[in-house]
């Protein structure tokens, strides 16, 4: 049972970091489909630089730096050069999938996966036995998650930046009239997204494990995006959505262990999170559609 909880948390943490990060962009009206790629880049750079310099913190710092750069490029393309955000986003992800694999083989002469010399501390040491034994498996980032959620919530719901982003996304005319520099605010939003994705990637690679393997995000970035819509662009609800996906995953895992050979094909259990996303996105779209302004 406790293990089940810990599994849920560990599977949720990267989703929530990426989801809350992406939330900044999405609220500012940018459907940031490059999150998947940014997570992967974050994971790789953390392992690469961390192992090279022997410090997980330098690794994460490097990951953040790289993601800031990538985010700026993405912003420049879609804001300044008017590139299509969806296609450019897909491109960004592809670039990162290829780039991480390429650099791994070019500079570390490793293919497929590489182990990391460094990992995130697991600060809390639980008792050897008993209920709380598992908490010692949670990484620092997992413990910092509540703080992170709080900060994001403050930034989005309790700061002028948050208000400005929301206005830009919902009603640009208002932002303009309020004298907001729209494209700069978008840049800030996307930079924040980049930072959070770096953390999400770090948690994946050196939180639970100490390794990077090609395409290890495995679609988690898209799930994070789903969590945002699922959570109807609200930080708290996005967090809950992230937990839900983690939970769904954990259920899938444990169902094979306890249910044993079930008659429900595994694939259908694995489909649930995706189907749920479609369902909730549709609910939300329906709700927003009805009180949307009249066209013409």
């Amino acid at each position, binding site marked *: 049972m406790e293990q089940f909880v810990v599994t849920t948390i560990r599977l949720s943490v990267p989703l929530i970091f990426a989801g809350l990060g992406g939330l900044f962009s999405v609220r500012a009206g940018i459907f940031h489909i490059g999150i998947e790629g940014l997570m992967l880049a974050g994971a790789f750079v953390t392992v690469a630089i961390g192992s090279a310099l022997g410090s997980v913190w330098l690794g994460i710092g490097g990951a953040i730096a790289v993601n800031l750069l990538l985010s700026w490029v993405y912003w420049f393309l879609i804001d300044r050069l008017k590139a299509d955000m969806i296609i450019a986003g897909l491109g960004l992800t592809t670039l990162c999938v290829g780039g991480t694999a390429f650099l791994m083989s070019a500079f570390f002469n490793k293919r497929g996966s590489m182990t990391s010399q460094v990992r995130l501390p697991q600060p809390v040491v639980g008792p050897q036995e008993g209920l709380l034994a598992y908490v010692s498996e949670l990484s620092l980032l997992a413990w910092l998650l509540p703080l992170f959620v709080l900060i994001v919530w*403050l*930034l989005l*719901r*309790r*700061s*002028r930046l948050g*208000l*400005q982003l*929301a*206005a830009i996304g*919902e*009603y640009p*005319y*208002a*932002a*303009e*009239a*309020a*004298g907001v520099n729209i494209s700069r605010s978008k840049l800030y939003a996307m930079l924040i997204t980049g930072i959070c994705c770096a953390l999400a990637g770090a948690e994946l690679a050196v939180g639970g494990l100490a390794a990077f393997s090609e395409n290890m995000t495995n679609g988690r970035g898209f799930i994070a995006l789903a969590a945002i819509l699922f959570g109807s662009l609200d930080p708290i609800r996005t967090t809950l959505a992230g937990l839900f996906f983690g939970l769904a995953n954990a259920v899938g895992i444990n169902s094979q262990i306890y249910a044993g050979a079930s008659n429900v094909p595994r694939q259908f259990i694995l489909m649930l999170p995706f189907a749920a996303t479609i369902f909730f996105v549709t609910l939300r779209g329906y709700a927003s559609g009805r*009180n949307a*302004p*009249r066209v*013409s």
Partner: protein
Amino acid sequence: MTRATATATAAKADAIVRCENIAVAYGGFQALQPTSLAFAPGQIHALVGQNGAGKTSFARALAGIVTPQSGRFFINGREARAPTVRQVRQLGLDIVHQRFTLPPSFTVAEALELVSAKKHGGAFFSFNALARSWLQELKAAGLEVSPRARIRDLPIETAQSLEIARALAGHAQFLILDEPTALLSPSGVERLFARLRQLRAQGVTLLVILHKLREVMEIADTVAVLRGGRLVLPPTPSVQLSQRQLSGLIIGEMPAAVPGASPREDASIPAARRGVQLAARQASTRQSALEPALAGVSLAIEAGEILGIAGVEGNGQRSLVDILTGLMPVAGGSVHLLGQDVSALTHHQRRALGLRVVPFDRLTQGASLSLPLWENVTVCDAPRFRQRRRLWLNIGAMRRAARAALQQFDVRYDSLEQAAGALSGGNLQRLILARELAAAPQALIAAQPTRGLDFRATQFVWQVLRALKEGGGGILLVSSDLDELFHLSDRIQVLRGGRLLGAFPPPFDRRAIGDAMIGAQR
């Protein structure tokens, strides 16, 4: 005028805002000629003029939203040349826009915090603190609204008073209100004016853009008039002006009465086409964010007549056209086309019955600027061009049809393939007419058909509409240009605050109609 200029120069001395040769142009289009004027402090100044006179352009220039093409202005004696919104606000000048600027999903407190110059709370604010501090601002502004309410749930009047409160929270000493009464009920207007007087008492200077002279006379200390982007009357004490003088200045000196359209002789109209073409019975709509709701509007357009709808923009014209076309459902009452109740039919189905429309805005509603000319002309009834016994379109035929139509309506273009966006305003409008009138429609709705067109193009459009009428078509002409209405209409009704006021037969009394539009008493 000499008296007026005298006062204007007098005002310069202790003016709170003074402009020198402020001019505004959009692209090549000169919306505001170089204009100089000054506003004395502690007064309520009114700025009036017809639609498109340049009032908003002037206001937006002052507020730092559009950068003036030339000129400079002084606020409290401090010079500001092409300032930003924030700089202007620092100087104590703020504006309440013609269109609302509060995001619908925000709570009152959030929305105010977003747009207000001054921060309540530091980097992060506590919502309660925010709510509390804004609650005080609102109380001070005498507003009974919860800071937790969502903007989208507020009545329009409240939303507007919020905008005012927002501006004052930034300690504006000079406040511009662009058509603040457009969407308000009479009692709402009363409350607004009470508030404005109260502000004046507190020493705030106000510049109010208005259309209704009764309101001007009621509230304004001085009045300035713009016509066609020119200042025709600098701020002048309203006591020195009569409504007659004012409406004269606004509308331009013209013969008091216009003969109107040639009375039609029914004989000329094919018998098949006689009778009511388009009608609305007690039609009403829900309140939209842009306009007052229509309340029990009834009208009927005979075959072979042009019914003119006069009125200042934003009094329900768009809603009226939307329910007649089927782009918006009626909340009550019914719409009839060729004697058939079409209230439930879509725009597509009404077109099939022979309705055609010339929309308000040719750039965003009339034609796709990125598509080639010939597609713009033929796309809506493309199915007509199916080749005999084949599924596919005969493009040659379509292009021929398009060329013919464009030629018939004298559109100047260099290639059928060029994007419609490359056409001039006048030519674009001709293209739209060519498309809508291709199959001589039974009923036509023409909304602002000559807005922004040059003389030649305007004459052409008028001539086309008359021709359609002679052929027995029924036309609803919605325009804010009285000359146009007078030249074309067989009858005129005035739309004000979502209600249709009594029908005016020719010869048209410009004064009477103008007064009905702007709600002036005689």
